[in-house]
C-alpha cells in the first residue's frame, strides 16, 4: 500500500515536471499580462499620463456604448470570421476533392498550393494593396483594358472589406485544402467501392459518404480557423489601416488603436477583454460541438 502511494507520487512529479517549463512561461507571459490588463481596464491609465486611479466600469461603459464598436467593429469582426472561414472551407474542400486523385504534376500543384502558407500576412497584404492600388494596380489596369471603370478599391468601405477578406481567403484556403486532402486520403476505401458497385451518383457519394466521414477533420479546421480569424490584425493593419474612416476595423485593431494611437491604455484593455470574453464564449460553444463529434479531451 505504501509502495503504491509512493509510486503515484513519483508519477505525479514526473507529469508536473513535464509541463513545468510550459506552465511557467504561460504564467509569466500570458497570465500575468492578462491580470495586469484586467486591472488596467478599471483604471484611468493614459499612456502619456498614467494616473492609475480607479474608475470602475467606466471604460467598459464607454466601449459597450461606443457606436463604432457596436455598429462597425463587432459586425465587421463576425462577418469577417464567418465569411472567411466559410469561403476558405468551401474552396479548400473543392480543391481537395479535385486533387484527390493521382495525376501528372501533382507534386508541383501541391507545392504551388503550399505557397500562401509560407507568406507572412503582412506580405500578403502588401501584395494585395499593390494589386488593388487605385491608379496603378493591376486589377484596375485589367478592368480598364476590358472597358470597365477602375475602382478606388481600398477607399470604399465594402470593397476594402472585400479586399481584406480576399487576402485572408487566399492565405488560408491552402491550409484547408491540405488538411482536408490528408483527411480524404486516410478514409477507408471499401465504402466507396461499394457505392461504385451500387451505381451511386457522384453527388450522392459526396453527400452521404465523403462529407460525413470527413466531418471530424472539418470541425477541427473550422474551430481553429474561427478563433484565429476573430483576432485578425496584420492584414487589416497593412491593407487599410482600418480605413476608410475606421470602417474596416476589426476588434484587435480597435483595441490597438485605443491603447497605442489614442494613448488610452485603460479603454484599450477594456476593449481587449470584452473581445476576449466574446471569443471565449464562441470558442467554448465550438469546443462543445467539436467534443461531441470527435473526442479530444483526455
Amino acid at each position: 500500500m505504501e509502495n503504491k502511494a509512493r509510486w503515484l507520487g513519483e508519477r505525479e512529479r514526473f507529469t508536473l515536471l513535464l509541463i513545468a517549463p510550459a506552465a511557467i512561461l504561460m504564467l509569466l507571459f500570458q497570465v500575468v499580462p492578462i491580470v495586469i490588463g484586467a486591472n488596467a481596464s478599471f483604471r484611468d491609465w493614459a499612456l502619456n499620463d498614467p494616473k492609475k486611479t480607479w474608475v470602475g466600469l467606466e471604460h467598459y461603459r464607454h466601449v459597450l456604448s461606443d457606436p463604432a464598436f457596436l455598429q462597425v467593429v463587432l459586425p465587421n469582426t463576425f462577418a469577417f470570421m464567418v465569411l472567411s472561414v466559410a469561403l476558405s472551407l468551401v474552396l479548400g474542400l473543392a480543391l481537395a476533392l479535385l486533387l484527390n486523385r493521382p495525376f501528372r504534376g501533382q507534386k508541383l500543384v501541391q507545392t504551388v498550393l503550399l505557397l500562401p502558407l509560407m507568406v507572412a500576412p503582412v506580405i500578403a497584404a502588401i501584395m494585395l494593396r499593390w494589386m488593388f492600388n487605385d491608379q496603378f494596380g493591376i486589377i484596375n489596369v485589367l478592368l480598364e483594358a476590358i472597358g470597365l471603370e477602375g475602382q478606388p478599391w481600398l477607399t470604399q468601405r465594402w470593397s476594402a472589406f472585400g479586399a481584406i477578406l480576399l487576402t485572408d481567403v487566399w492565405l488560408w484556403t491552402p491550409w484547408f485544402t491540405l488538411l482536408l486532402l490528408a483527411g480524404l486520403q486516410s478514409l477507408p476505401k471499401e465504402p466507396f467501392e461499394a457505392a461504385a458497385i451500387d451505381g451511386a451518383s457522384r453527388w450522392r457519394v459526396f453527400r452521404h459518404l465523403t462529407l460525413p466521414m470527413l466531418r471530424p477533420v472539418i470541425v477541427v479546421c473550422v474551430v481553429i480557423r474561427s478563433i484565429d480569424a476573430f483576432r485578425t490584425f496584420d492584414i487589416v493593419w497593412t491593407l487599410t489601416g482600418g480605413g476608410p474612416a475606421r470602417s474596416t476595423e476589426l476588434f484587435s485593431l480597435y483595441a490597438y488603436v485605443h491603447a497605442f494611437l489614442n494613448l488610452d491604455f485603460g479603454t484599450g484593455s477594456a476593449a481587449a477583454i470584452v473581445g476576449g470574453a466574446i471569443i471565449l464564449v464562441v470558442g467554448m460553444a465550438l469546443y462543445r460541438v467539436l467534443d461531441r463529434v470527435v473526442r479530444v479531451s483526455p
Partner: protein
Amino acid sequence: MSARRAFFTLAIGAVCLLFAFPILWLMLTSLRPQSGVYYVHRGLEFTLDSYVHVLHEERIVQAFLNSGLIATAATVFSLIVTVSSGYMLSRFRGPIASTWFGAIYVFRCVPYISWVLPLYFVTQSWDIYDTYLGLLLPHIAVHICFFSWLMKGFFDGIDPSMEYAALIDGCTRWGAFFRVALPSAIPAIAALAVLCWLFTWNEFLFALILTGQRTPVITVVMAQFVHEMGIEWHLMSATAVLALVPAFVLTLFGQRYVIRGLKI
C-alpha cells in the same frame, strides 16, 4: 473522356495561377526599375537595383538578422517546452492532465491583443522591452497552446507499448521519454520546427508592440514602409521578396514533414 481531362487540367492550371499570381506579380514589380514600377505590365526593362538598394539599408539588413535570430531561437526553445507538454497530455490521465488541457484550450482562445497590450508594460518593467529576450520569451509562450495540442496528437499516433516495455525493463520514466518516445516522434518534431520558424518569422502584432528602434524585425519594417513610403513599390516589393526567400527555402525542404505534420 479527353474533354473531361482537358477541363481538369485547365481547372488545376487556373487555380495554380490564381494562387501564385500575387507572388509572381510581387517578384515582377521588384525587378522593374523605379521609372517603370507604375507600369509593371508595360515595358521589358528589368534590373536588380531595388535589391541592391534595399540590402544597403542598414536598418533592413539588421531587421533580417534579428528576425532570423529570434525565429531560430524561438523554434529551439518552443520545441523543448511543447514536446514534453504534448507528451504529458498524450500519455497521462487524471486531474493534472485535464486541468492542463483545459488551460491550454482556454488560452488558445484568448485573442493575442488581450495579453500583448499589457505585455508592453510587463517587458518594460522587467527591462526587456525592445530586446531579443523581450520578443523571444513571448514568442515561445504564444506557441505553447497550439503546439502542445498538435504534439499530443502526434504522440497519440505512436504506440506507447514500447515505452511500457522499457519501464518494465527498468528504464526510468525520463529514460522512456527521451530514449523511446522522443526518437519515434522526430518527424513530428521536424514538422513543428518548420511551422514554428515560419510563424515566428511571419509574426507581426507582437513585434509591433514589443519592439522599437533598437530591435527592428522584418515584418514591422515592411509595414512601416507601407505607411511611411507608400509610393516606393519597387523597394517594398524587393524587401518582401527577400523576406519570402528564407520561408520559401524552408518550406521546400520541410514540405514533406509539414504535409505529414498537418494531418490531424
